[in-house]
């Protein structure tokens, strides 16, 4: 069909997670009127594990959304009309928390992959942390029987009760909360970050449909401008007080202290360096992600993901 180049004004934007500091930029852009300034009317909708932005794009419930790279690649593999227009997190927030003094005396830290051996590790079966950890195991030459693996649910009790030593968390949300809780009880924690070991599995990215790109390229541009502007502003340390207030408004049940720390951690994921261009798509990381998924048999054939990165 002929491109229409028409404006689309009522826009739904489906996030991947609940309103909290990990979506600070999205909230910022919305609340500070950046979308309105671009002349578009955007409704930012909260996400959750059960919601799937890619489905919503296709069904027309959403026009933009946030999805993780594995979701995107799997969807493309199955013929979904999805394009990536920005990569929010340069570093995957999916990391593993552990106690540094887990056995009470000896300081423990994961410095090399070999340190994982003999440890009790939590994995969300079917989740992308499983794929990532499997890649780590392959990389470190660790056999499945050299570690103990436990399936993970959404609650942390097994970790809190020291049943499981190394537990997957979103570094910038639950990671902060857990770190804080344990710190209060006099325990210090470390985080195992796969990207420190060369595994760059891409996480949250902004997506839209091919149809949208074709029919409303202007709208896409405006949306992206406003969004990146929002994230830039939210991540700017000078705006910390404003960001904090905006997030607190949406996430009433977290204390300011926690939110402040979450913003700090989020900033490290969005802007690994001071000069990093916010939202930049790391094509190599995407290719690596695709390669990992292919190897882990998550997809049957290559999708050439680079073609879907705009």
């Amino acid at each position, binding site marked *: 069909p002929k491109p229409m180049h028409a404006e689309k004004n009522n826009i739904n934007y489906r996030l991947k997670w*609940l309103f909290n500091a990990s979506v600070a930029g999205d909230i910022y852009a919305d609340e500070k009127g950046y979308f309105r300034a671009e002349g578009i009317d955007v409704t930012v*909708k*909260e996400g959750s594990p059960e*919601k*799937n932005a890619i489905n919503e794009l296709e069904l027309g419930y959403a026009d933009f959304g946030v999805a993780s790279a594995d979701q995107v690649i799997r969807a493309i593999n199955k013929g979904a009309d999805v394009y990536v227009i920005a990569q929010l997190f340069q570093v995957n927030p999916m990391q593993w928390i552990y106690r540094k003094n887990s056995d009470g005396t000896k300081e423990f830290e994961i410095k090399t992959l070999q340190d994982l051996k003999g440890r009790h590790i939590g994995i969300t079966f079917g989740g992308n942390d499983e794929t990532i950890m499997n890649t780590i195991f392959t990389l470190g030459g660790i056999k499945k029987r050299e570690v103990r693996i436990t399936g993970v649910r959404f609650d942390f*009790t097994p970790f*809190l*009760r020291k049943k499981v030593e190394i537990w997957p968390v979103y570094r910038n949300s639950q990671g902060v909360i857990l770190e804080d809780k*344990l710190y209060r009880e006099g325990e210090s924690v470390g985080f195992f970050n796969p990207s420190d070991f060369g595994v760059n599995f891409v996480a949250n990215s902004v997506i839209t449909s091919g149809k949208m790109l074709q029919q409303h390229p202007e709208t896409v541009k405006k949306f992206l401008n406003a969004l990146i502007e929002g994230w830039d502003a939210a991540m700017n340390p000078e705006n910390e007080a404003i960001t904090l207030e905006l997030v607190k408004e949406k996430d009433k*049940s977290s204390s300011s202290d926690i939110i402040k720390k979450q913003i700090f951690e989020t900033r490290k994921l969005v802007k690994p360096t001071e000069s990093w261009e916010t939202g930049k798509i790391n094509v190599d990381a995407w290719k690596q992600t695709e390669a990992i998924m292919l190897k882990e048999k998550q997809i049957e054939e290559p999708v050439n993901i680079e073609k879907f990165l705009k």
Partner: protein
Amino acid sequence: MLFKRIFQFIIVYFTGIISLMIIKYTLSLSNYVIPGLPELAETACDHFGQYFFDVINTLSVTLLGQIISIFMAFAVGIAGRKSSWTGSFIKVTAYNIQAFPIVALAPIIFILLGDGFLSRLLIASMICYFPLLLSVLGIMASPVKDMEHFYLVTGKMRWQLEIKIRAFENLGKLTTVITGSATLAMAGTIVGEFIAANAGIGYSIRVALYQSDLGKILIALLMIGIVISIYQGFLETVGERIKAKWLGTSAESTSLTKEV
């Protein structure tokens, strides 16, 4: 009556809290596994108001969900009461839809209905409706021969009458089940909110869970318990009124002719 209910709930609740505390102190678990009483009190102060309104929000959906499931249960129960092929087909359909856990159906529900109020309502109704259906089916499928005989032999039996007779003869059972199903509707709404909503106490519980904050969950449970006690007390009163009206006895008259 109502106060008795709330009082009984409070006893249950605090027994639960005390057991948790005993577990906490005997296993010497830290505050992040099971919060101590001071932490609990603090959480209560901070979130009491918010959770109260959340529960009220949930209750509004519960109400609607329960009404819908009562209608659904009666519709299916009535349609499925005969042992004919259609009857058993309706039953099988009703059973099978339920056999699929909501969590598995949720993606399909979202695909068809999008998120928001409708999905939340649907999930609530589905969880509440099936147990109701079971009871309604049980009641609707048992003939009351000594009452139905006349209508059958004189050709006056219509399905509405059959249902009325069976419902009437099992009025006590039905009111118990409907009152009890309030709890199910509440649980269903909360599950729905947990999965699909961005409001209500279920949503707040999910947030608390993501934060691994047992204290908040315990306070939320307290609020749920109190509100549901009140709601159920209300339903019970209504049930008694209806019973008294249908049976033609007033509270006064039953006490006068009471069995000794």
